[in-house]
């Protein structure tokens, strides 16, 4: 319903240009933080495309991300396939998996959905570990490529651009509007003619697709991959917290959450690693009690007060 705002487009292009030159000016450590940050921008933004409007909090990002990383690793390590082929296959596999999970879980609502996605993600992790340990011989897999951190960064930036364009299209489309109505009142959504199950599955699938794509692209960074590590449930929680801290009512909301959070997370994990879980808990409390609509929601509230 909104008009195209030229200032918004110009701002987006400037931000993109600034983001694109980061690897040229940042050195090893800073670039590595930047890669982590842009990875979470992609994950949190694509997560919010579905969970933002519908309020279906999915804790399955880790599973889809893991599918991406694991398929690249197993394809390259055990079956001698190229990185590009595996990076193309992985998101499709994750999208199919997401469709199946979506069909099974999206009838559930509220906390049941949250728990179910977490459980399913754990199940996928254990299943893959079990198959890997019992049938495929080795425990870990090597992902050896010529990619530098800068290459990975630029690939992830490209993914982010695609996610933002998709998100912008979505917010102007009937499908996006349908998701907002579903998030407001699912009974009304059905009675105004929305196929709620289909709308939710389509978006859940998209989220799974992007999470796996990110997982596939980031895999070369780790060189050595174990299922238990790449299917980390911690990642699912981080994605949710970052997106919620930023705010999910705007497309650029998660971005606002990811960057400060990644930096703080990086500092805490390297200096006080024992406190990282504590920090995660505090961040959760902060969201629930202080900024239910994220930083962006807070800024908009202040903006309204100033104008009023």
């Amino acid at each position: 319903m909104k008009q195209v705002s030229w200032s918004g487009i110009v701002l987006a292009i400037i931000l993109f240009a600034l983001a694109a030159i980061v690897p040229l000016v940042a050195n090893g450590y800073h670039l590595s933080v930047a890669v982590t940050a842009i990875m979470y921008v992609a994950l949190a933004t694509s997560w919010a495309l579905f969970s933002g409007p519908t309020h279906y909090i999915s804790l399955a990002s880790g599973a889809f991300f893991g599918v991406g990383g694991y398929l690249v690793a197993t394809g390259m390590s055990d079956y001698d396939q190229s990185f590009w082929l595996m990076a193309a296959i992985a998101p499709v596999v994750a999208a199919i998996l997401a469709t199946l999970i979506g069909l099974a879980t999206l009838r559930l609502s509220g906390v049941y959905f949250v728990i179910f996605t977490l459980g399913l993600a754990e199940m996928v992790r254990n299943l893959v570990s079990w198959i890997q340990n019992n049938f495929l011989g080795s425990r870990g897999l090597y992902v050896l490529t010529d990619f530098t951190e800068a290459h990975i960064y630029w690939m992830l930036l490209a993914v982010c651009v695609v996610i933002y364009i998709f998100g912008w299209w979505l917010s102007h489309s009937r499908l996006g509007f349908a998701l907002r109505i579903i998030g407001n009142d699912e009974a009304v959504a059905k009675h105004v003619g929305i196929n709620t199950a289909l709308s939710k599955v389509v978006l859940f699938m998209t989220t799974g697709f992007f999470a796996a794509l990110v997982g596939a692209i980031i895999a070369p960074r780790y060189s050595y991959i174990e299922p238990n590590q790449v299917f980390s449930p911690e990642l699912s929680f981080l994605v949710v917290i970052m997106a919620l801290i930023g705010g999910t009512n705007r497309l650029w909301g998660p971005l606002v959450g990811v960057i400060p959070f990644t930096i703080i997370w990086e500092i805490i994990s390297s200096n006080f690693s024992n406190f990282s879980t504590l920090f995660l808990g505090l961040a959760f409390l902060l969201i629930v009690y202080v900024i239910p609509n994220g930083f962006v929601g807070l800024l908009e509230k202040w903006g309204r007060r100033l104008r009023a």
Partner: protein
Amino acid sequence: MSTGRTLLQVNGATKRFGGLVAVSGMTFDVKEHEVMGIIGPNGSGKTTMMNLISGELRVTSGSIAMQGRQLSQLPAHKVSRLGVARTFQLVRILPGLSVIENVIAGGAFGHSRRWGDDALHFAQTLLDRLGLADHMYQPVGALTYIDQKRLELARALASEPQVLLLDEWLAGLNPTELQIGIDLISDLRKEGRTIILVEHVMDAIRSLCDRCVVMNSGKKIAEGKPSEVLSDPEVIRAYLGDE
């Protein structure tokens, strides 16, 4: 007014919830341009009947058809797309959307499928008609109760439904608002819309309905003109009990 062809046919519709039979063998027709009232004491199955028509619930047996198309096995969104719109007994507006978005929501997916400028203009026209023009871009939290009800009606009308279901749309209004509400539905009736309404307000039933179906314990106990059915001894007994 009831000279049109038959639009909706309910034939032996029955709904069981476990051992409870909420609606039992209901049979009635609704003609085009007709306002049909469904009345009866509390718990007689009126809202369940509405939910069966709108696809919220599926019939256990029997059928509901609109212009020869079966509605009774379709999910709610498909029923809506075929042209059945409804309001809810407890008003349900979309709190996170603006007033005008609430109306557009009614038209974007259902029967009329309006989108973009077309949807916007149509929604403005509807809000204008229902007296909500001043609230168009407000959040819905700012609306009074009757305005919320108007908004819900505007949302239902946005899909240009063939059949409009009003589930106690007049309930909870004060006497002044009630008159406004009755006039509004009366206008819709003059436009020739087909409406099924569940209502407790007897004045509204007398002045608005062409015909009424009276339900008691899930069954139809009378059908006919409001003045006739309301003086039917069995209807009086259902409402007031035996002497």
